[in-house]
């Protein structure tokens, strides 16, 4: 069954916890207390809801993908997080945590980013609230998501290149955590996904579950049949957790998380932590992760920078072991095909992350025939256009 809150030790079953250097522990407890208070404060909710409506543009629409439905024989709908301000669901989390940083009196914010969407969303929230902002981004991601680097800079944020490791999301998270170990007294770390030590996975889930809660209201209100299957891509897992959580343990809805299959699970070059990883501790949390026989973290691989991560949120690990969600994967190539398919069939250029979810639906179209399927269209693909164009040069 799903948990309202992780237990007193920040655990979802055996997953989660707080494996952090002692220097950070008091800040993690301070954050847990601050969020617990804010989350039971009507004024905080009123301010957040107002911003979600007037600044973010919520509720995001539910759209019937008519031509793809005809083509695939599936009754297919998109939850349009790509239409949220800044172009992805990430803003739901950063506006909430930005408010929290203000409430805690922290003048400086740091974040990590992979695809750049969380970085842009954090930069945006910091501009909105007048907070100083620095974002860690891997060198390789700076290259493949250049557009988002400019956007962050225009918003007044400093982008700090990370050269360690493979120069991707894992390394950016690690560098942000190292910064936080040094700056914890004045700085709030807005982590971008349902990962990291407790209370981060819980806070980010609470701020993202608005996606699924809206969907629960919108579909009956619009006379849409209730979803039978909900599909979302999973890197760290925040968009998936946001749409799954309200439906988890509901029984009636099949939930499918799609991880990055990269060059194939057998190649070792992928981001399928849940698919073929094993339990371990990464970025302060016990979860499924990619590691070698000695417990060294392995590099992930994905064409999508947002899914190029060797860990996953601990609550997803719990959902997997509790059989509340089914986790699958698709390859880079399948995701690229789906990217073009969505663009040309529905007039929406999706983020490469979201294209993974469509690719799974395409692969499983026979099984899904006639069923009502909702795809969480977690972000728009403008950021990926250069990279995709380069691949076809």
């Amino acid at each position, binding site marked *: 069954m799903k948990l309202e809150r992780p237990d007193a030790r920040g655990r979802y079953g055996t997953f989660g916890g707080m494996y952090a250097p*002692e*220097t950070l*522990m008091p800040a993690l407890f301070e954050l847990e207390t601050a969020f617990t208070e804010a989350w039971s404060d009507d004024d905080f909710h009123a301010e957040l809801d107002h911003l979600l409506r007037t600044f973010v543009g919520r509720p995001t629409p539910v759209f019937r993908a008519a031509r793809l439905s005809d083509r695939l024989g599936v009754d297919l709908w998109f939850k349009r997080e790509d239409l949220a301000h800044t172009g992805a669901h990430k803003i739901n989390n950063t506006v909430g945590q930005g408010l929290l940083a203000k409430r805690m009196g922290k003048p400086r914010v740091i974040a990590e980013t992979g695809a750049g969407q969380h970085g842009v969303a954090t930069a945006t929230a910091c501009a909105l609230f007048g907070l100083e902002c620095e974002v860690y981004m891997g060198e390789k991601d700076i290259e493949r998501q250049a557009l988002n680097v400019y956007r962050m800079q225009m918003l007044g944020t400093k982008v700090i290149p990370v050269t360690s490791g493979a120069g991707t999301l894992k390394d950016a998270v690690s560098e942000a955590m190292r910064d936080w170990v040094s700056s914890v*007294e004045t700085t709030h770390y807005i982590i971008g996904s349902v990962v990291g030590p407790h209370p981060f996975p819980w806070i980010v889930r609470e701020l993202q579950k608005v996606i699924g809660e809206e969907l629960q209201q919108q579909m009956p209100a619009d006379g849409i049949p209730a979803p039978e299957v909900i599909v979302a891509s999973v890197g760290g897992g925040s968009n998936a957790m946001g749409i799954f959580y309200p439906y988890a343990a509901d029984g009636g809805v099949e939930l499918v998380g799609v991880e990055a299959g990269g060059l194939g699970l057998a190649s070792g070059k992928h981001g399928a932590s849940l698919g073929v990883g094993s339990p371990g501790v990464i970025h302060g949390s016990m979860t499924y992760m990619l590691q070698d026989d000695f417990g060294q973290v392995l590099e992930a691989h994905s064409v999508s920078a947002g899914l190029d991560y060797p860990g996953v949120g601990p609550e997803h690990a719990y959902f997997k072991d509790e059989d509340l969600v089914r986790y699958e994967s698709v390859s880079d190539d399948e995701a690229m095909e789906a990217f073009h398919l969505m663009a040309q069939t529905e007039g929406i250029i999706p983020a490469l992350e979201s294209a993974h979810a469509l690719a799974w639906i395409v692969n499983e179209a026979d099984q899904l025939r006639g069923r009502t399927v909702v795809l969480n269209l977690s972000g728009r693909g403008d950021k990926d256009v250069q990279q995709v164009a380069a691949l076809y040069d």
Partner: protein
Amino acid sequence: MTEPAPTEPDPTDSRTETGHERIRRLFADAESDGRAVLLPYLTAGLPSVEESPSLFSAMADAGADGFEVGIPYADPLMDGPVIMEAGERALEAGVTVDRALDVVRSVVDTTGKPVLVMTYVNPVLRRGIGGFFSRVAASGASGVIVADLPADEAAPFARAAGEHGLGLVLFVAPTTDDDRLEHVVASDPVFVYAIAEIGVTGERDDASVNIEALAERIRSRSDLPIVFGVGISTPGHASIAASHGDGVIVGTAVVRRVLEADSAVEAANDLSTFVAELRAATDVSRVARR
């Protein structure tokens, strides 16, 4: 080695002495000698597995009381760029957990000094906590330091350490509040690792301003040995730490000298000079310290 093996106690004792006791005896001996315990940190396997023990021998000859030997880890959240690079180099050179512990075995055998193994949580979990501690005990090490293990998650590690006679170290930071501090000292670590700087490991220009207050806060709640580490970069810094604590860990300043040296011989010479300076700076008499 000029110094007599430091452990020539009564033989019945040494046969039954656990790692935990060995470390505690180190502090008792240092106290009666009127000095602070000096524990240099160095990543295992640099510049190579074969040459690594010679660097520890050089430091032992120069007056180190024992060592913190690092198992290289791919994602060290508590470490700054120098120790990160040392870890990367060691991993590239194939220094696995077992090879690192082979280095530990050799260091223990050749220097006769107690060794604490430094690691992160995940390599321990991957082997299994019991299996890991058993392997560490077999290497001859006396204790374990886990950089990303707060007291809140330490219970199963402390149990395994107890079963294998090893000393488990726990941390206190300048950010640690009094309730947490009580919890840490009540967990009976072999010593308290007092984090001198708010930040990751790395050299600092100025001595930490946190040392005196942190030592007083811990001392008022416990008789456990207090060892300062993080940011202690020079003999001057070490002297201040030694005047308030019972021991001093110097990591990055040691590791950087090894990374910068062109050969193991050059590294051993540099370390020999540096550790001798640290030794002189930490030979602060107990009377002066209290």
